[in-house]
């Protein structure tokens, strides 16, 4: 069994400026934000994203001025609204975007994962999504099915340089388990040329073997494993901790104003020397309060607002 465990600094140092990245995470959950904060701390720039809906990553990187191009379906903060930093970056012409429907961008990742050069799809035909050019070439090409003549669109396989995915637990070889929603992490892992997993905990092989049905990423898909407890904060991690809603609301309020967001970045991302300093700043009391109750599956403080 290979030992793929690396430090956060080391894996982030291996990501070059200008890399095309795809990130895990959906809505307010399992977003690899410890790694995103380290990308910002290390000064990584001119990054590209191939995204479905990784709103927190896009907004952090946009607010720090680190992304140049994004291929995506949608970014929105559930319960809060559109992503302010990202929207401002696009409105100011600092970020170029390539818009896709949800199924179209997913199909581009699926094609890469299947090892085929393209997939035929139907949606997007007849919309303005087809009238805007892609970064490299056409986003999709109209084509007549060679068997029936039915009009389809061919979408090219998308192979991001690196997929960064946050999981619940992994062994040292990279067999990775997620307990909640998995969104499109399997498609992203299969599509990317390199896969970095950040994990709440590195566990013994025997723990993984006890429940193999929870393994969403087998080791052969994973290149590096980084242990970062609370690595998705302020988003949540199912069965580990809830989203930190107050922090998210403060973030959103700051993101409405570039100067206020600059201050937020200084305080929470550039200021702390590393992930541990960040967690110390959030504070033990708060982190413990966010922890999931093993019986309830969520934090006790949120239990009273549930059904």
């Amino acid at each position, binding site marked *: 069994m290979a030992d793929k465990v690396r430090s956060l600094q080391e894996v982030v140092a291996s990501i070059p400026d200008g890399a095309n990245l795809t990130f895990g995470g959906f809505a307010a959950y399992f977003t690899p934000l410890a790694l995103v904060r380290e990308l910002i701390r290390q000064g990584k720039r001119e990054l590209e994203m191939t995204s479905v809906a990784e709103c927190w990553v896009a907004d952090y990187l946009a607010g720090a001025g680190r992304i140049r191009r994004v291929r995506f379906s949608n970014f929105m903060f559930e319960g809060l609204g559109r992503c302010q930093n990202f929207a*401002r970056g696009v409105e100011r012409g600092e970020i170029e975007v390539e818009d896709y429907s949800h199924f179209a961008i997913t199909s581009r990742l699926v094609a890469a994962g299947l090892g085929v050069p393209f997939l035929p799809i139907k949606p997007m035909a*007849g919309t303005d999504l087809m009238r805007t050019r892609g970064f490299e070439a056409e986003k999709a090409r109209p084509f007549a099915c060679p068997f029936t003549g039915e009009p389809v669109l061919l979408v090219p396989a998308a192979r991001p340089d690196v997929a960064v995915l946050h999981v619940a637990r992994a062994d040292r070889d990279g067999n990775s388990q997620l307990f909640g929603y998995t969104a499109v992490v399997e498609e992203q892992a299969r599509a990317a040329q390199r896969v970095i997993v950040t994990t709440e905990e590195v566990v013994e092989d025997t723990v993984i073997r006890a429940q193999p049905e929870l393994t969403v990423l087998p080791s052969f898909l994973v290149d590096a494993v980084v242990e970062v407890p609370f690595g998705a904060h302020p988003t949540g991690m199912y069965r580990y901790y809830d989203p930190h809603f107050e922090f998210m609301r403060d973030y959103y309020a700051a993101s409405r104003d570039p100067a206020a967001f600059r201050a937020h970045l200084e305080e929470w991302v550039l200021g702390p020397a590393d992930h541990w300093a960040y967690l110390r700043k959030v504070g033990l009391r708060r982190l413990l309060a966010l922890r999931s109750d093993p019986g309830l599956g969520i934090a006790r403080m949120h239990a009273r607002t549930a059904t």
Partner: protein
Amino acid sequence: MMTTDYTTEELMACAVSRELRDGELGFIGLGTGGRAFIYAVGIPSVAIELAHHRGVDFIAQYGVKLEPRIPEVPGCFTDANLLEWPCRAMILVEDCLDMFRRGMMDWGFVSGAQIDPYGNLNSVCIGDQKHPKVRLVGAIAQTDHCAQARHTMIIVPQERRVFVERVDFISGLGFGDGPGYRERYQHHGGGPGKVVTNLAVLGFHPQTKRMRVQSLHPGVTREQVEANTGFHLEIPDPIPTTPPPAPEEVELIRTRIDPRGVWLQAKVQ
């Protein structure tokens, strides 16, 4: 006997509900907050549950969750709460896509920032896509619903900035520029079915494919609709009135379907 004790959202939910038939399948996303949530998620959900109370076996799919118990919606949309919200199946993401691809989805419930006379929707940008005045959330699966659902139920606020002569960007295809447009692409889906707003229920002319008023909500005038629409709307004469919710329907919504106001008042954390 007419009752005036109902909210506009309750009326809209009842209007949507009347369009739903036995055995149909509909897809609802779970996103955003405030009015966008009420329109895209809350109103269709209450409509579906009202249909269930009438004995209509309408099948609702929320993302990957098949037929969750609508009144038991969690008051806080954490993953944990959503995962534990009782439902009949957790469908694979690929299967959600496939159900649209194979033309199995009867209704896609959609909304948008702009809509034009042919039911084309925009959720991408205000202004030019490369240099937008306002960058919006993006196409989401709206494009996919509009192409492949048998019909779409469009739920939007009726305002001049929403009802525009031309949308700035077509992200969800309605009838394009009119008759024959959708047919060129042989989309499986039939396009816009109904548009339900805070003022009216609207449909589309079978030949011209232009939006037209089907009924105005009680108390709403022709002038009010015209003042809030940025394009010419055909309005029948005499104008039918949207049936108001029956007192039993209002009672059901308030006591059984949405007692905590999660759906129609967006009382979500």
